């Protein structure tokens, strides 16, 4: 914004040297003040312009809150010759929609959940991964190398780099909910002898909520293959299960991790669909009554994967930043801030024993026993079904 220029009224007005209370104060006159302000603003603008052309390049990243923490940004900037500017997002869907609407020119990197990477690639928004340029790649778990070649690939070319991982189950308030066999059915049928009416929360997200319902109904086969595929009859059954649950056990749908913490702490619900990272965060913050349940039908695993925009002016630098997120030290910093394990096991060397126990050393072989979240084959039908649930 340009500074206000003196106008005719300013020229006619005497220099203001008296306060409203009538006390003289020997400061600069209004005209002098405006001139000085104008000069300062012009100098700042000029400096900004010069800085934009000759200073350190900026890499803009669209991703989750933990990446924006000072320690994480500083760790990346210490290792890479770039200023890292992180914009926070609360959902992969919003990241994708934003890039679709033109933000792929504003951001160099986005880090959505793994199931969104094929969408970025199919829409021409993500550049192929130069695997051989990523120094930290050889150290990541084989599980994720394999995921890069399958889930994150289109026609055999990988478009995303895994960063950190976790899984979804449900958390519960152990003061109100007794020990029980962990099962997705707790979210849909409750627990015998425990009144959970209007005391259960699900994610306000078609993918997560409907996946949970599908697993509760035993549609495990739908999660095999490169895409999650529910048949029409399975989709109908999932929809009915969610509508039944809404009318009996549901307290509300939660937007994200923060909503889970607020709601279960406030007492709005006692059981809530959530990621392990969220529960670990709460326990690390001193909430000892929160418990995590990993359903026996299979927890839904996730991992975040970085994509680099096809429109970036600094592709090499962007991939350097991505590489740094999975480097041992920076990866450990990210794990510490987000309480979620890195895809690089070498990060544990930079974590305390307690932190390693809490979240640093989850063997991804555990993920092999879980159900990987992937892109959905018939997503429009899922969205339509989810709207029916929400309006039921």
């Amino acid at each position: 914004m340009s500074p206000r220029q003196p106008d005719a009224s300013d020229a006619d007005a005497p220099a203001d040297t008296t306060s409203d209370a009538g006390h003289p104060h020997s400061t600069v006159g209004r005209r002098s003040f405006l001139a000085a302000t104008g000069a300062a603003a012009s100098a700042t603008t000029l400096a900004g312009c010069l800085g934009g052309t000759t200073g350190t390049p900026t890499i803009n990243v669209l991703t989750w809150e933990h990446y924006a923490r000072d320690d994480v940004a500083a760790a990346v900037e210490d290792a890479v010759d770039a200023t890292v500017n992180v914009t926070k997002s609360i959902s992969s869907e919003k990241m994708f929609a934003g890039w679709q609407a033109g933000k792929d020119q504003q951001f160099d990197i986005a880090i959505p959940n793994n199931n969104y990477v094929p969408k970025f690639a199919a829409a021409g928004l993500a550049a192929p991964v130069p695997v051989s340029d990523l120094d930290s790649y050889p150290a990541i778990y084989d599980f994720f190398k394999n995921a890069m070649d399958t889930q994150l690939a289109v026609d055999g070319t990988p478009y995303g780099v895994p960063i950190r991982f976790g899984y979804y189950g449900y958390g519960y308030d152990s003061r109100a909910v007794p020990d029980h066999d962990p099962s997705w059915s707790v979210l849909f049928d409750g627990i015998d002898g425990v009144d959970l009416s209007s005391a259960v929360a699900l994610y306000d997200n078609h993918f997560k909520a409907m996946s949970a319902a599908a697993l509760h109904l035993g549609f495990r086969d739908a999660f095999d293959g490169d895409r999650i595929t529910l048949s029409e009859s399975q989709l109908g059954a999932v929809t009915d299960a969610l509508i039944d649950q809404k009318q009996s056990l549901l307290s509300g749908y939660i937007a994200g991790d923060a909503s889970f913490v607020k709601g279960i702490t406030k007492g709005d619900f006692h059981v809530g669909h959530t990621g392990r990272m969220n529960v670990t965060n709460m326990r690390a913050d001193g909430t000892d009554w929160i418990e995590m349940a990993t359903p026996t039908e299979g927890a839904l695993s996730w991992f975040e994967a970085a994509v680099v925009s096809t429109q970036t002016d600094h592709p090499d630098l962007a991939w350097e930043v991505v590489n740094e997120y999975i480097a041992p030290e920076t990866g450990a910093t990210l794990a510490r801030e987000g309480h979620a394990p890195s895809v690089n096991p070498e990060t544990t060397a930079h974590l305390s024993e307690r932190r390693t126990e809490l979240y640093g050393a989850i063997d991804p072989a555990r993920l092999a026993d879980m159900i990987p979240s992937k892109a959905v084959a018939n997503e429009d039908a899922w969205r339509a079904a989810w709207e029916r649930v929400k309006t039921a």
Partner: protein
Amino acid sequence: MGDTDSVLGRLVGSPRARLAALLAPSGGLLVALLFAPLSFMVAVSFARVSDASRIIWHPTAANYTALVDATPFWSTPFVTSLLLSVGIAAATTVVCLVAAYPVAYALARRDRGRRVVFFLVLLPFFTMYLVRVYSWYLLFGDGGVLNDIATVLGVGPVDAFGFGVPAIVVGLAHAQFPYMLLTLYAGIEAVDFDVLEAARDLGASRRAVFRDVLLPLTLPNVVAGSLFVFVPAFGSFVAPRFLSGSTVLLVGQLIAGRIDSFNIASASAAATVVVVLIAAAFGVAARYTDASAGGDH
């Protein structure tokens, strides 16, 4: 030159030219910020979106037919959410009208304390809308303050204090109340109160004076205030999301959700229908208030 000057002088000097010059900036803003985006939205509503989420400019009415593609047609998510939105917006309007009319009347009749009341009414405007909604979020819900109090008093938890439609109506009414109050106050304050007293002198009851004199005189303001409340309430999506626990889907939320998933052709069709309905409501209201103003006043 002289001829040119005189032509220019006539153009600039004519009332029509001066009016055009006055209207040009606002007209330009309307075209750039309202009509152009609306036109684009209507155009997109007749397009398709590819699997790669690209707009394909191939004319189709499929986005509109999909809005009512069910048996019965009112069971589609769009129509269901539209009807719920109308119901909630109507309830909000009624709550605001019933609460604001007596206050506006009292403010118009009495000078004493007027400034204080106005300050208190406008006080929420100095706070962000999101913060106000969040304060209601803390009050409502099974673990909210209202239910905590009800439980302490031995009558809770009360369903009405949980998240849902009642909480949404309360939150929206709180947000829209000043618009209704100020609009009603402007109308009531302009009423010649001698007319009311004359009616009373002639034997009319208080109820009859209100029904037959005051209400007709302030009807344009009632309609205008109702529109000021109804329209924003109809399209709201922040308050419903917080205060229903996301268990209901109003039409604003439905459209926002479709945009988030880049289903913008479908979202545009839904939004176009909403815009047309609101424009029609405005048209009916304007016609009605004009008629009443011209007929009875």
